[in-house]
């Protein structure tokens, strides 16, 4: 390896880059840091000022939020839907994408266009609602995991990755007597970990963050997912949620510290998933897709 000498211009470029990235990191992290600090702040500290280190640290906010029964129920529901939703979605996506990636699959392009067309034409909220209602999924967890089980975009990404795997792998397995199912699960999937990890992350995060479907399909308040509870608490007292009844308004608003704590509690768990999947990201998802 040849060592390149750094010129003054290179240094300047590096320093500029470093400063720019630091700045970008800061403005990305700051809102989060602010909420974190607020979540540890005691309620009798002036909240109209900004702090990074709270003048009066307390764990009361966390105690209050974590003992809230709505948040507890929300956690159970969200974890359930994330696990179930991710599992269903991965199985369905892989099983759809794999055949579509095979050149010898009859009418492959036709079927692919069937999938792709849904990316351009969607049913809309009201027809989706009617569908879910008439097949009896209302107020069940299935209403949250089934309608979004297959995302056309994910199928296309996954298919393109599979297309990048050399055919010879499949041929050698077939010579050894493997059938299609065994080839997919024993040969193809182990070499497709990057795409599986990526899809898992995407789907899991989407499931974790989803709230609107829960809002319309879940009618029992105890079954609402975490994000619905979080939104309700955080939006209290903002202009969107202004109470038409002034008598009630002034007394029912949660303090900002509680709101910040709720955001922390609901966001941190999913944030912890990232470091474990990060390494697959480095390899890149789109590398596969370019070869399609």
């Amino acid at each position, binding site marked *: 390896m040849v060592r390149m000498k750094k010129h003054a211009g290179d240094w300047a470029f590096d320093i500029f880059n470093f400063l720019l990235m630091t700045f970008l990191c800061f403005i990305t992290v700051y809102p989060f840091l602010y909420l974190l600090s607020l979540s540890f702040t005691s309620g009798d500290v002036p909240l*109209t000022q900004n702090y990074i280190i709270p003048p009066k640290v307390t764990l009361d906010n966390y105690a209050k939020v974590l003992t809230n029964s709505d948040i507890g129920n929300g956690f159970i529901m969200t974890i359930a839907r994330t696990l179930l939703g991710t599992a269903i979605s991965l199985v369905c996506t892989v099983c759809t994408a794999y055949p579509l990636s095979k050149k010898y699959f009859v009418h492959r392009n036709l079927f692919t266009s069937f999938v792709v*067309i849904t990316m351009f034409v969607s049913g809309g909220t009201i027809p989706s609602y009617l569908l879910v209602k008439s097949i009896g999924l209302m107020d069940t967890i299935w209403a949250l995991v089934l309608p979004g089980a297959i995302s056309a975009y994910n199928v296309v990404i996954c298919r393109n990755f599979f297309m990048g795997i050399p055919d010879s792998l499949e041929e050698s397995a077939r010579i050894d007597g493997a059938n299609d199912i065994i080839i997919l699960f024993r040969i193809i999937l182990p070499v497709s970990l990057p795409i599986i990890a990526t899809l898992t992350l995407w789907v899991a995060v989407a499931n974790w963050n989803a709230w609107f479907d829960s809002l319309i399909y879940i009618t029992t308040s*105890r079954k609402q997912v975490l994000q619905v509870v979080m939104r309700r608490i955080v939006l209290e007292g903002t*202009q969107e949620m202004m109470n*038409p009844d002034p008598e009630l308004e002034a007394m029912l608003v949660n303090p*900002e510290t509680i*709101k910040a704590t709720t955001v922390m509690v609901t966001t941190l768990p999913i944030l912890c998933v990232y470091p474990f999947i990060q390494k697959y990201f480095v390899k890149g998802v789109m590398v596969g897709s370019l070869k399609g």
Partner: protein
Amino acid sequence: MKRTKRVIAAAVFCCLLAGVAVGCGQKTEQTDSGQTYNYTMTMYQTEPANPDSVLKKEFEERFGVTVDVWDIEWQKYDEILNLKMAGGEVPDIIYVKTAQAAQKYVDQDIAAPIPLEDLERLAPNMLKRINDDSEGQLKYYYIDDELYSLPSYSVGAGASGIPMVWRGDWLKNVGIDKVPETLDEYEEAFYKFAKEDPDGNGKDDTYGLSRSGLTSVFAAYGFVPSLGQTGTPQGYWHSRDGQLVYSAIQPEMKTALERIHQWYVDGVLDPEFITGENKGGYWAISHQFINGIIGFTSHGMSYHWEPLFYVDADPSTSGQDRYELSKLNKEASDALEVSGKPPKLTEGEQPTYPPKEYVRGERWMFSKDLLADQGKWEKLLSIYNEMYSSKETFDEISMGKKGVVWDYEDAATVDGNTYQRTIYLGDWKDQEYRNDNTFNFRLFSPNFLEAERVKTPRDDWADPKGFNMPYFPYNELYINLPSTNRYNSELTKIEDEAYVQIITGDQPIDYFDEFVEKWRASGGAQLEKEAQEWFDEVNQNQS
């Protein structure tokens, strides 16, 4: 390629067909026609309704009915209710957020007209309360000559209004002994706040006022445009020589803007007035005022600035703005000067305006299905009738039994008086338990006759400040005009832009005339026409 296209076309067709099939396949809901009626309803809620709430159980036993409250998140209320209605589910009792939505439910044949003779026959108590609170207010709830909704208002909390709030300690520091009353006195105080270092920190870092204070300045001229208002800003409509006119285009506003522009030039108006005083979080908090950057504000409502009334009250239960300020500067919060009187243009009597009516966009409608079932409808009216028969009954139904859930107790106030205060008993002391076990079936909270009503310290604090008097020019247009949705956001943008540009000097003061023309041409003329028609109609109906 051609083949693919044909297949795609076929596929699309199939999908559409499937969609139609699903749409047609819904069952119509059957209403329970047994002896006990079940009422479905929606309402304003910040917390999900608890189906097993104690007060709800009591209510159901008392009246021999069952009630099913739908949980619909307030922020997405219209959207989700529409979905449900599209799916064939219509609640019996519908809480309606805006007059616009009310019109839609009439057009879509969802809501039924309410026969006035039914109210007179079966719910005379309720009708009497409505008329006692504001004579003839039902006229605002007519659509196409039929009564379609009932009001949803609350007057039990006492007077509230847009406040004029001064930093009393700053006034003293700059040598002003009397709280300003005329606009000239206001101006003098603003200049001193900006120039004479009222906080005594040796730095030139203070201003007289910011965005919300402008509302009071405009109000001095008798009109209230959207710029400066907090909460949900909307340009007000005011009556002027028998006409209903739009505030922002009145010539008086030009005079006001000229004055404010001068304040901007002289560094008296906070340059951040463009983005407002609230920097996030609870909407009614004025960060600029609390952080000691400005000395006058009209942010929030009067109850956001009220002091602690009772000796033993928790500090956090005072008005939110006052509480935030007290955490930062206790002396300043004790020295606040709050008033409900906007500045006067000249010395002499405080001008008055038509009183604020309780009419609002929010209202109640009743479904066609409910009114088709005569027995169910009559039962409902009889419930309302009993509910509004007296303050005791109303309190018992909406708050629970006196002596079990709550009671009055004598409590001493900071200024040495004693008032009857409502306190909760037993389990009900716990806020969370209360939230879980309340139940609100009421349509509105009336102002029970003086004799029945318990005076609160809030009344005695707010009344002398003029919050209960018609000193502030409030909006006199009580409905959404047919074209409001079409034009309003664009018009408000034009208005706010023009106002800000004139104040900052980006446009000369004469640009105001150009703005008025532009406003009218962009749909304002249509709104003016519709507002006048409504105004004439209402005044005609007044009997």
